[in-house]
């Protein structure tokens, strides 16, 4: 799609006009972001009237910069409504009815309606297309039964993006449909999913005879997989950055632990072993950062290579090792977990220089190589898409979903 041309200065002027009408330091989030939306400065690549101006998406950075210049308060999309803004608004724009566009998108942007994504299921993790929640047509409605899992924000969401099986008699990718689910509808039961740290960052969502009107299907019946993948946030690349400053990130914290919190009473020989381990982790952390820089430089020159694809795998494996080493540095005190395991929603951020933070990350980092694509899936992607190795023979590709063994 061709973008509307606009100079940077003109865009900045529009931002200043917005700020005169509503200033984030003076009005609340919903009011300010509502006005921002009305001025077409919410998502500048969206069409006029739907929060945008039809500009190149890169120009959003200019808007954000101008707001930051004139206001202390800045609402990050990622804090306001990450899944709604990242996936919900684009999917409604691409596949929704005019009425959906006009009623849903603004409330996504302001954060009045939080959105969540209902894809993963207990029986469908890496193989999400194998999911088994069922939607059965009943008059003008679909009746959905099943269970979703790892659902971020479900407990405060108004809308969910649901992929469910509508036809079990065709191969797995062809039998799913995509729905907008009202999370307040009868039969939707959201429960916290407590994890290794004792917190519940995520939820389980149980769907018992939940009725969804047929007009809330996005795309055609059977197109659920296509709709889902065309609107997926680029979660994998977003998770593998390794950017930041030299010596920062987890390894910087590890080096502080080494300086300030290493176990007393270690022998010189034991210290030498740990010192070499920390040095190896420092070098790898630096190379993760430099590889990401190299990828950016190559992309800028229009020459992207494999360096841009290795970040997610390398980072998640490396960070686990860094936090494991943190426990070794702390020594016997790693036996103590002062934060406790009270089952709760994530409440506070431990201070990054505290022992408690390192101990928490030791546990939390186990998810790094699972969330957003397991390391095994990442290795498949590197092997097949970057190195061009042949795929694994697929046993479920051409047979009806109902005949595929699962468990």
């Amino acid at each position, binding site marked *: 799609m061709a973008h509307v041309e606009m100079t940077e200065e003109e865009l900045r002027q529009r931002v200043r006009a917005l700020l005169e009408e509503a200033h984030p330091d003076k009005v609340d989030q919903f009011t300010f972001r509502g006005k921002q939306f009305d001025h077409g400065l919410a998502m500048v690549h969206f069409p006029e009237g739907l929060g945008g101006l039809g500009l190149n998406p890169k120009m959003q950075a200019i808007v954000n910069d101008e707001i930051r210049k004139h206001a202390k308060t800045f609402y990050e999309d990622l804090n306001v409504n990450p899944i709604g803004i990242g996936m919900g608004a684009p999917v409604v724009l691409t596949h929704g009815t005019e009425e959906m566009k006009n009623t849903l998108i603004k409330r996504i942007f302001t954060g009045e309606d939080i959105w969540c994504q209902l894809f993963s299921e207990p029986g469908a993790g890496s193989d999400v297309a194998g999911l088994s929640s069922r939607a059965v047509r009943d008059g003008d409605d679909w009746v959905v039964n099943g269970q979703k899992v790892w659902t971020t924000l479900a407990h405060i969401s108004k809308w969910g993006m649901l992929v469910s099986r509508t036809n079990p008699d065709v191969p797995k990718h062809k039998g799913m449909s995509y729905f907008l689910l009202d999370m307040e509808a009868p039969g939707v039961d959201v429960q916290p999913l407590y994890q290794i740290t004792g917190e519940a960052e995520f939820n389980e969502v149980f769907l018992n005879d939940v009725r969804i009107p047929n007009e809330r299907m996005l795309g055609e019946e059977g197109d659920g997989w296509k709709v889902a993948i065309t609107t997926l946030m680029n979660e994998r690349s977003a998770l593998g950055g390794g950017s930041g400053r030299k010596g920062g990130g987890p390894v910087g914290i590890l080096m502080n632990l080494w300086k300030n919190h290493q176990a007393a009473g270690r022998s010189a020989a034991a210290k030498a072993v740990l010192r070499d381990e920390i040095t190896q982790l420092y070098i790898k952390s630096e190379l993760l950062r430099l590889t990401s*820089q190299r990828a950016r430089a190559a992309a800028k020159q229009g020459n992207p290579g494999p360096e841009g694809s290795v970040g997610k795998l390398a980072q998640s494996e490396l960070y686990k090792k860094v936090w494991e080493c943190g426990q070794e540095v702390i020594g016997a005190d790693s036996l103590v977990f002062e934060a406790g395991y009270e089952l709760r929603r994530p409440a506070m951020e431990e201070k990054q220089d505290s022992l408690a933070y390192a101990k928490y990350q030791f546990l939390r980092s186990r998810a790094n190589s699972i969330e957003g694509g397991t390391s095994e899936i*990442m290795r498949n992607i590197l092997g097949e898409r970057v190195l*061009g190795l042949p795929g694994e023979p697929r046993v479920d590709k051409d047979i009806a979903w109902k005949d595929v063994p699962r468990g």
Partner: protein
Amino acid sequence: MDFAFTEEHEELRQTVRRFLADKSDEAAVRALMTTDRGYSDEVWTQMAEQMALQGMIVPEQYGGNGFGQVEVAIVMEEMGRSLLCAPYLSTAVFAVNALVEAGSEDARADILPKIAAGQSVATVAITEANGVWDVDAIETKAEQDGDAWRLTGTKAFVLDGHVADVILVAARTSDGVGLFRVEGGADNLTRTLSPTLDLTRKLATLELKGTHATRADGGGDQSAALRKAVDLTVVAITAEQVGGAQMCLDMSTDFAKTRLQFGRPIGSFQAIKHRCADMLVEVEFARSAAYHAAFRAAEDDPETALAVSMAKSYCSEAYFHVAAETIQVHGGMGFTWEHPAHLYFKRAKSTSALFGDPVEHRERVADQLAI
């Protein structure tokens, strides 16, 4: 640090790659590695006359191209890929770095133009039997004898020391460590070719028994200058490691695509595919490390030494691991003499042990970061 490679860099890479594909294919490598000399005079001359490779980092006033560490890294990467058998690292990298950093005007003016023209093979002798690539470990003594000097001691692991026309020997004087010039054919010099693990890179032991030498530096202590020369040479060797590692990965993936077992390409098995993916990560990290060191060195950045040691530690282990995995991916074939995997495996280990192994370099990193 923006890894600012230019189109000219890419052209250089392609030109060198084409040249080496023609002059240093596997058959050429195998033929040369079993000779004592270890290289082809004809190709050496062509490298200078057609490609001006020996003069890459020789300053222009001495007949060179006056390029920097990034350009020579590109050349070395390609040489590592093709396992070129030639005294390039010793002559065009190490000796040139030593002369540029520590050499006297006379020594530079005399030696560098011949190196650039491909008319002289030169090397640097720092390390002794203790295997330390640092000037502090030098015991070889230099004693003044009129206008000349007499050197006594034993130098070990000297790159191409058996064929070098000019040997730049680091030796201890009452003023510290100096750089001395010894002619390859000097009296009271015994040069013994070492039987090496890696046949594609020749090393010699030099016994100096009051050997006649001239001063190649401007006098005084050259420790700092020689340390820098070693560091710059390590930059080049890490680039060579990247080239070799990339070649191993390429061989492994090509093989995994075509080798059939159990009725399918072995690369379709995750056991092989995932090994290859891990190798890819290592190659890309090694590349970042080597290029980072090259750009730092080219800018004469104060953190060059840190970048160099990070690169030497990481690239050495990455190349070795990737080469080892290459043997494994190729199965029985990878273990044969006929298959080139062992040539890379041995080169990987030799480049790891040369100029300080990964443990040594991590020690330097840890020191500089006060870990």
